[in-house]
């Protein structure tokens, strides 16, 4: 039925099967949309957030998807600026995943603010000294860049490509893509960093606060670094999942190996920096505010020292070692374990930098406050995930996302 739209030389599932799955995922999407509309109409009393938890699940999800979407900027940086040409075979997918992550982040932010119709105030009345202002500007600008990077792929659709203007537009955009990629890398450096800065500048919250360089706390650099390390891992993970679902090889092993190796080195260097940062914070910063490290990991039902061990050792050091050492990396089970751990690690890092900061009491006569999200919060957090699945389904079906697919899966005529 839709065969005219499907790229030539590749095989796709029957239309009924595609529509069936689209329908199933669409139901979950509608559930999320319903919760989103509830939050917009009835307000944030639909959530379980409170005055102790001004930032909660959504802000974590925001930080997490932006870190995971970091694969787009870093792969783009490696492909267009460093000149790692092999990565052209995965860059489309990295861009698509980045596009999904960033549009999701913007959507979540639009639900998260108390007065969404006033969101333009952040641009118009910008307080340039606020890390959140930097986030808003860079995020919006970078989303434009991602759209620009995604558009040529859409224009490569068989039918669209037949229209001369679109054909030329796509071609011209490809020609100067390095300029857009460079701008994207510049913007990403700042917004990934300023998201780290959001927590790091909170000098009233000793758990989050970090010293730093000039106006940037150390978390600024750590967030950029970890996004560059774990973002590509997420791109690889989604690629592997897509390969499993489609039962096809979509990217050649040398491409996966190269990106995995680079991620490993990024993760390895990041985790060394993170350990040094944690060490200094625990021994110098925290005691200067009257706390000890154990204060942050005791007297509550959830946040024990396990979370620090999990984040740094199990989900940081371990995957870095696997990805750096060639023979380990080339073992497919270990490789999968490593990229999954790296993705979990960066999500835990974002979690503690948002949720644990809020949970931890600062006044001596206050206690830990734990929170669980309402179904509306969960549904609106699931919403971007299903939206992402749908966009991937449509893009994979109708666009030449994987340049090596045809070669790896020859269609019998």
């Amino acid at each position: 039925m839709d065969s005219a739209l499907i790229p030539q030389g590749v095989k796709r599932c029957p239309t009924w099967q595609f529509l069936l799955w689209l329908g199933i995922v669409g139901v979950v999407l509608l559930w999320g949309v319903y919760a989103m509309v509830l939050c917009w109409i009835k307000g944030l009393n639909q959530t379980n957030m409170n005055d102790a938890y001004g930032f909660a699940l959504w802000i974590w999800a925001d930080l997490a998807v932006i870190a995971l979407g970091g694969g787009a900027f870093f792969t783009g940086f490696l492909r267009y600026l460093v000149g790692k040409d092999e990565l052209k075979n995965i860059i489309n997918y990295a861009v698509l995943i980045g596009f999904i992550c960033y549009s999701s982040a913007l959507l979540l932010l639009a639900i998260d603010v108390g007065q969404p119709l006033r969101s333009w105030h952040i641009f118009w009345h910008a307080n340039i000294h606020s890390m959140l202002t930097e986030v808003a500007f860079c995020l919006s600008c970078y989303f434009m860049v991602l759209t620009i990077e995604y558009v040529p792929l859409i224009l490569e659709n068989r039918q669209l490509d037949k229209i001369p203007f679109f054909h030329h537009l796509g071609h011209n955009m490809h020609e100067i893509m390095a300029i857009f990629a460079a701008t994207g890398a510049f913007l990403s450096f700042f917004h990934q960093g300023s998201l780290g800065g959001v927590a790091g500048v909170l000098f009233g919250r000793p758990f989050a606060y970090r010293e730093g360089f000039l106006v940037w706390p150390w978390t600024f650099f750590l967030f950029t670094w970890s996004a560059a390390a774990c973002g590509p891992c997420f791109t690889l993970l989604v690629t592997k999942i897509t390969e499993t679902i489609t039962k096809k090889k979509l990217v050649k092993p040398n491409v996966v190996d190269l990106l995995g190796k680079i991620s490993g080195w990024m993760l390895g260097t990041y985790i060394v920096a993170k350990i040094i940062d944690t060490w200094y914070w625990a021994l110098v910063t925290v005691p200067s505010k009257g706390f000890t490290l154990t204060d942050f990991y005791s007297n509550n039902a959830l946040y024990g020292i396990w979370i620090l061990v999990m984040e740094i050792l199990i989900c940081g050091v371990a995957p870095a070692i696997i990805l750096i050492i060639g023979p380990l990396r080339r073992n497919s089970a270990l490789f999968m374990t490593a990229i999954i751990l790296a993705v979990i690690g960066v999500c835990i890092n974002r979690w503690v930098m948002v949720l644990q900061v809020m949970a931890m009491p600062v006044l001596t006569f206050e206690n830990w406050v734990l929170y669980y999200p309402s179904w509306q919060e969960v549904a609106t957090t699931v919403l971007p995930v299903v939206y992402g699945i749908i966009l991937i389904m449509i893009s994979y079906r109708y666009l030449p996302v994987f340049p090596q697919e045809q070669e790896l899966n020859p269609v019998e005529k």
Partner: protein
Amino acid sequence: MKEDPNHIKARKFGMIIDLDKCTGCGACMVACMSENNVPFKEDESNKLDSITWMRVYKVTNGKPYPDMEICYIPRPCMHCEGSHGHSPCVSVCPATATDYDQATGIVSQIYTRCFGCRYCMAACPYHARYFNWWDPVWPTGMEQYLSPNVSPRMRGVVEKCTFCFHRYQLAKDRAFYEGRKTIEEGDYQTACTQACPAGAITFGDLNNPHHKVNQLVEPDPKHNGRPKNPNAFRLLERLGTNPKVYYLTSREWVKRAGDNYLKNED
């Protein structure tokens, strides 16, 4: 009335709360809510989402009877100055919806500009900032009691103690009509100060040596306003928030409850 900044030394309004006098009656909380049109819910039992610009904490020394002692700590917004006006919340607000006024030292909140991102709440270690989770609704007839000098806030924005800033504006207007160049100490007092039956709260200009607040705590400008009076302390002094609310007590354990200390620290 617009005062000529060239002729007036910057004021720094601050509050002293004598914890040895405070009985924990809560009159300051009631006065504050009534004065500032603070909305409330039918069920106020969940203190995590009810708005209390002035909140009285009950603190104990942790000892069993008969050595147990109780202290009530009223906590308004601390109107932190941080370092040169770099207070925790002001510096983070992305939309310039909260501001540190160098002329009065008051941290303001512009409700119509706030878009409810709540970053300021995350930044405030005192939990002095509150979000309007619900539309403000008053029982029928009660809207007649609302103060015309304070705008009620809409759902989805953050609010907090303003040191009754509208009273400062009224005091300036009155002084202007009476042909006075400046306002006197008694012209501008917050609602909680006036409501306290024990006289535990003192309010005034910390920069003015003739004002009681200055005499009571002797803020040291060389050390970010740290009190010279050994019985005075500020909450979470070590964080560098530089608050303008001081507490007085003769009890050592109360003073120690005001900040975090390592076990080996005095």
